[in-house]
């Protein structure tokens, strides 16, 4: 399919402006600052743009088009009403007097509170733009906290080898050294190794619970106790919050800081990679470190942007965060209620365990026990048929199913990480199981079917080596 630039033709347009209604003046600035050649943007008529994006859209898999069991990404349904409600707030400038934005501020205030309640935290910032951004926020809070308390020797952040890549990257960005703790044979943090590595130089421990294997860290209370004994903070990566809403709260487990992914747990659409939104909640002792501003309520019942946070880590981004993502998440929380959120978590976990049980006979499940919202297939057994997890995944595409997350977590070789979410039906799961078994049969009978996959997709298997070698990143 042609690029929109390849469809361009001199003299075409999709746009016109009203005639300039003010007297024209000569452009007054140094000649070298005036553009000589217009940016070579496409020149296309409106129908061409329309068809271009119509064609492109049809080449995308999406939650709307089918099952999307991408582990760790919580590809749940994005309700239609969320979009409509977000559309009500498109035309607000961030520097408008608060008197005129009371509704928007109240929404943020309520959302801060709801997220605090769900996570068991005392204060929440909505500023971070994504999960990783929330992690960075959290790590900067850790830094500020240790600086403030004079813990000058605290230079390390501990995290398990099953952690998301963003965890070490965020810790590093905040200037910490990253210490990995191996997972034990049960897929949880190895408590002994953890104890060995835990000392006063540790600033924080980053965990997600349930962890990326979908398993609940059963020693969490012990870990929290140890952390706090060493004046380290416990950080909760909210990627897997969808498993435990209304069941158990990070705050109650002993976590001091938590980020939440509104685009995962709270159903805001992933938008091809973003925008997300990664609010961060903290315990009371860390409230004064939150980025500025947060939304507060004054004594007259007016909402306002509170910049008076003396120990604040500063700012992580401009303005107040991804507001229209917040509107969607807020709509979702109102729709679901405390009862619906809890039920969502339960059904997410039910779905994952159902799939696990249905697949465990023919596939090797890593750590095959009651999981939470996701579980991992260990794909090493596929080697005997001469195929890899990658081939298996590509073959799923031919059946119209988006493959699970592959090759993550790193501690399971040839991993396939499956997170069905609660918005998929038993029928959909059964269909997935059938397809998985069918592909396995194909692998056994003719590995070429997998290795040559996909065949029924808009393009066939793409060559990443060529792409990285040639590095053609623009037309």
């Amino acid at each position, binding site marked *: 399919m042609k690029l929109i630039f390849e469809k361009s033709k001199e003299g075409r347009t999709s746009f016109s402006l009203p005639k300039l209604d003010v007297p024209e003046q000569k452009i007054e600035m140094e000649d070298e600052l005036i553009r000589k050649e217009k940016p070579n943007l496409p020149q296309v008529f409106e129908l061409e743009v329309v068809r271009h994006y119509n064609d492109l859209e049809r080449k995308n898999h999406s939650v709307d088009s089918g099952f999307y069991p991408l582990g760790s990404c919580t590809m749940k349904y994005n309700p239609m009403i969320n979009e409509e409600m977000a559309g009500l707030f498109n035309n607000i400038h961030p520097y408008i007097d608060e008197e005129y934005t009371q509704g928007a501020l109240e929404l943020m205030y309520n959302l801060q509170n709801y997220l605090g309640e769900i996570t068991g935290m005392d204060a929440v910032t909505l500023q971070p733009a994504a999960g990783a951004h929330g992690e960075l926020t959290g790590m900067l809070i850790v830094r500020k906290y240790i600086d403030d308390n004079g813990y000058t020797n605290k230079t390390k952040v501990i995290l398990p080898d099953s952690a998301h890549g963003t965890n070490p990257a965020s810790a590093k960005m905040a200037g910490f050294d990253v210490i990995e703790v191996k997972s034990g044979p049960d897929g949880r943090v190895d408590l002994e190794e953890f104890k060995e590595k835990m000392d006063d130089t540790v600033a924080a421990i980053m965990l997600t619970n349930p962890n990326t294997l979908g398993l609940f860290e059963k020693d969490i209370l012990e870990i929290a106790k140890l952390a706090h004994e060493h004046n380290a903070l416990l950080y909760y990566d909210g990627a897997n919050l969808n498993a435990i809403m209304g069941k158990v709260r990070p705050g109650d487990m002993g976590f001091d800081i938590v980020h939440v992914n509104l685009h995962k747990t709270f159903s805001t659409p992933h938008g091809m990679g973003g925008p997300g939104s990664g609010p961060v909640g903290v315990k009371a002792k860390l409230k004064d470190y939150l980025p500025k501003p947060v939304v507060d309520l004054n004594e007259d019942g007016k909402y306002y942007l509170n910049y008076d946070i003396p120990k604040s880590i500063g*700012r992580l981004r401009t303005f107040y965060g991804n507001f229209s993502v917040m509107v969607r998440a807020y709509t979702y929380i109102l729709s679901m209620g405390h009862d619906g959120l809890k039920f969502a978590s339960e059904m997410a976990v039910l779905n994952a365990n159902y799939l696990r049980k249905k697949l465990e006979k023919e596939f090797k499940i890593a750590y095959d026990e009651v999981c939470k919202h996701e579980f991992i297939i260990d794909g090493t057994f596929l080697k005997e048929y001469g195929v890899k997890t990658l081939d298996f995944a590509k073959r799923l595409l031919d059946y119209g199913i988006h493959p699970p997350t592959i090759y993550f977590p790193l501690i399971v070789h040839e991993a396939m990480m499956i997170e069905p979410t609660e918005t998929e039906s038993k029928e959909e799961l059964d269909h997935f199981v059938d397809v998985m078994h069918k592909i396995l049969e194909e692998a056994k009978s003719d590995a070429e079917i997998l290795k040559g996959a996909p065949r029924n997709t808009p393009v066939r298997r793409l060559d990443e080596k060529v792409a990285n070698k040639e590095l053609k990143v623009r037309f």
Partner: protein
Amino acid sequence: MKKYPYIPHTEEDIKEMMEVIGIKNIKELYSDIPKLFEGDLNIPESKSEIEVRREIMELANRTINLDEYAMFRGAGIYKHYIPSAVYQLATKRNFLTAYTPYQAEVSQGTLQALYEFQTAICELTGMEVANSSMYDGGSAVAEAILMASRINKKYKTLVASSLHPEYIEVSRTYIESQNLELETVKYDEKTGRIDIEDLKSKLTEDISSVVISYPNFFGVVENIKAIKEVLPEKVLLIVNAYPIALGLLEAPGKLGADIVVGEGQSIGNYMSFGGPTFGFFASKKQYIRQMPGRIIGETVDADGNRGFVMVLQTREQHIRRAKATSNICSNHALMAVLSSVYLSVVGKEGLAEIAYQNYQKAHYLAKKLMETEKFEPVFEGPFFNEFVLKPKFDLDEFNKKLYEEKFVGPLNLGKFYNELNNYGLFCATELNTKEEIDYLISKVGEIDEINL
């Protein structure tokens, strides 16, 4: 059993599934979790769509809708016209509800759209490579500073104090914990441009990069070329650009910029109370391996047909973990695609015309305001569509009255600069009609002399 529109499970389903799993009730799935929380979350019960809509409409009704306002305020977020096709096309559901294109073969819509976006950003900025988006302008600047340090291994950045003050704050937050340093460079009180002498004086050995804004926060167009000329060879020049202005202003890449970043809201994103918008990020090709964020590249499929994939993933956190160029994972792809559609719709001629009209409207506004004799001029430097004037009256009072007329007046710069309190940062775009401008002038004319 209560039913939820977003959850498909019937009682029968649950029973059958529990049987397969071998459990008798759902609680068993949570038996390994410590009993730390009992009862219900303190959140209202689930609501019907009708009730939810009512509740949120009520909030919306207590929130300004600037679609109906004459807008004379910018300061980083601008009210530009968004053609109807832009949102309708970019927010099609199979764009909206897709995720990061991990499986390229079923994500060619996303990948080609972002490849086209990268191309458009290169065209605008005059750079060789661009990534597929950052969170916003502020974090893009911060990441550019970090990138510069990775490139030249120096630890200090000089930032023009006429960069958007929030960008400076964000940059400071990002870099200080990495033991990098940030120092600001004064603006020239006469021109509003960066104070070249102050800049020169601060250009020590340890300087990694210099950050300027184009135009700057006061609306004044910096002379990139003149700045570049005073920089030692290894110091990277980071330019934060206003993309609409690039329809009229020379591409920063042609004037010596090494990294060009900026806030993308103005090209096809709603104001949305400041977010989500997106940051764009472009640089010379030689630095591509130090870039943060996702980059899309062209390749071929098994049949030799063109296709697109994510490239240089080894820079990224999911591969490189602590050694990644950035921790960024989710970006603002949807916003980037919105702007890519925008740039396709307005096209080569349209963007130039938009920029030209912005320039003309703002200059007409400035001229008319000065003619009222109720303002003093502030900066002499050339400006694009924003400018600073010093009113001889109380700006906040005036602005309050304007709201009642469905007008939004200039930003009081006292919000960010103590020395510029009661100075107004005015903005005009292609959406400001002469009629609106003349009405604003008439309102200025009415200001009671007592106020002066």
